[in-house]
């Protein structure tokens, strides 16, 4: 820190010695000041207004401070907003179990989906600490409009910690397994999240049946036209088939089923 103050002293030749001798300065921010090139704000921030500096001073600030920091000191020179955002991301990067999870998916998901998963884990960690996550979620949705928001929600609900791992373990047992099939399946489920019912043995049949009916009514109203049922494991495949039975005579609904050869994975689409 003193290094920067010392450099500023050599650039401004005694003009601001009173300010530059202040040992409380911890942060340096290039900004607009009201009167001088250098002004102390909030007791510990030194604002540097290059608009008030002459050409030689600007050149020296670039060479002796910014270049020194970026090149020699191996630092990042960021806008104040990006600085805070990077700090927040750094403190929420995946570690421990999350790192293991990323290792598991590294060679299984398409790169885009993998990157979105990593970012969603950062969002989840920040959310757990009660930090503001709107900005981060918005970024992920903007970069991946078809699945960004959904993957954040699925990660928060831990579907990547359990369900999609189990899905891989089940699919790999099929003789004609191909990683592209797994990638397509994950994509389909993630993209269809608002129109998906996950059939799981942790929920009663009546509860699942109610959710299917509720979502069908809602989707009918908003014209989405399809609902995905996804079941993993024999018990859930059986429950899914029973749910489909409820609609077999409904002429307004067409049912498409994808069942793996082992009968352990089902993805059914109700089209209406």
């Amino acid at each position: 820190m003193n290094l920067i103050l010392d450099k500023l002293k050599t650039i401004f030749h005694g003009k601001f010695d009173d300010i530059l001798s202040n040992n409380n300065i911890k942060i340096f921010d290039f900004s607009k000041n009201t009167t001088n090139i250098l002004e102390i704000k909030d007791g510990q921030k030194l604002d540097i207004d290059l608009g008030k500096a002459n050409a030689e001073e600007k050149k020296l600030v670039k060479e002796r401070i910014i270049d020194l920091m970026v090149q020699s000191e191996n630092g990042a020179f960021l806008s104040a907003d990006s600085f805070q955002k990077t700090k927040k991301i750094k403190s929420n990067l995946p570690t421990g179990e999350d790192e293991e999870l990323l290792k598991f998916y590294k060679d299984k998901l398409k790169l885009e989906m993998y990157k979105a998963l990593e970012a969603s884990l950062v969002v989840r960690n920040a959310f757990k600490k009660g930090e503001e996550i709107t900005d981060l979620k918005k970024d992920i949705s903007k970069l991946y409009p078809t699945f960004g928001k959904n993957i954040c929600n699925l990660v928060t609900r831990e579907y990547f910690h359990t369900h999609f791992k189990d899905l891989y373990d089940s699919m790999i047992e099929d003789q004609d397994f191909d990683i592209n099939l797994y990638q397509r399946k994950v994509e389909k489920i993630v993209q269809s999240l608002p129109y998906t019912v996950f059939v799981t043995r942790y929920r009663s049949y009546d509860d699942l049946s109610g959710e299917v009916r509720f979502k069908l009514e809602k989707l009918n109203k908003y014209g989405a036209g399809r609902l995905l049922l996804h079941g993993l494991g024999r018990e859930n495949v059986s429950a899914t088939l029973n749910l489909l039975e409820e609609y077999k005579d409904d002429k307004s609904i067409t049912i498409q089923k994808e069942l793996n050869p082992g009968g352990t994975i089902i993805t059914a689409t109700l089209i209406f």
Partner: protein
Amino acid sequence: MKLGNITFSKNVREDILELFGKSLDEEGFIVEKDDTSQRVLTPKGEEIHIDEWAGVVKGSEAFVKNDALSLIELAKKLE
């Protein structure tokens, strides 16, 4: 890599760009000051709009974007 304790405010972004020999084109993308048809690219080859610009990191003055994905890559390199 370190985060450092030097930042710049939104209202001086163009002054900072000038220090690096850059300016903005009519659409607000960062360009080389001496060849304004040449848009500056991130290490991934993306053009950078001024509103998406996070700052500069080591590596031939690599310009980085301010979206979560770009900053995650940066954060992973920080000590």
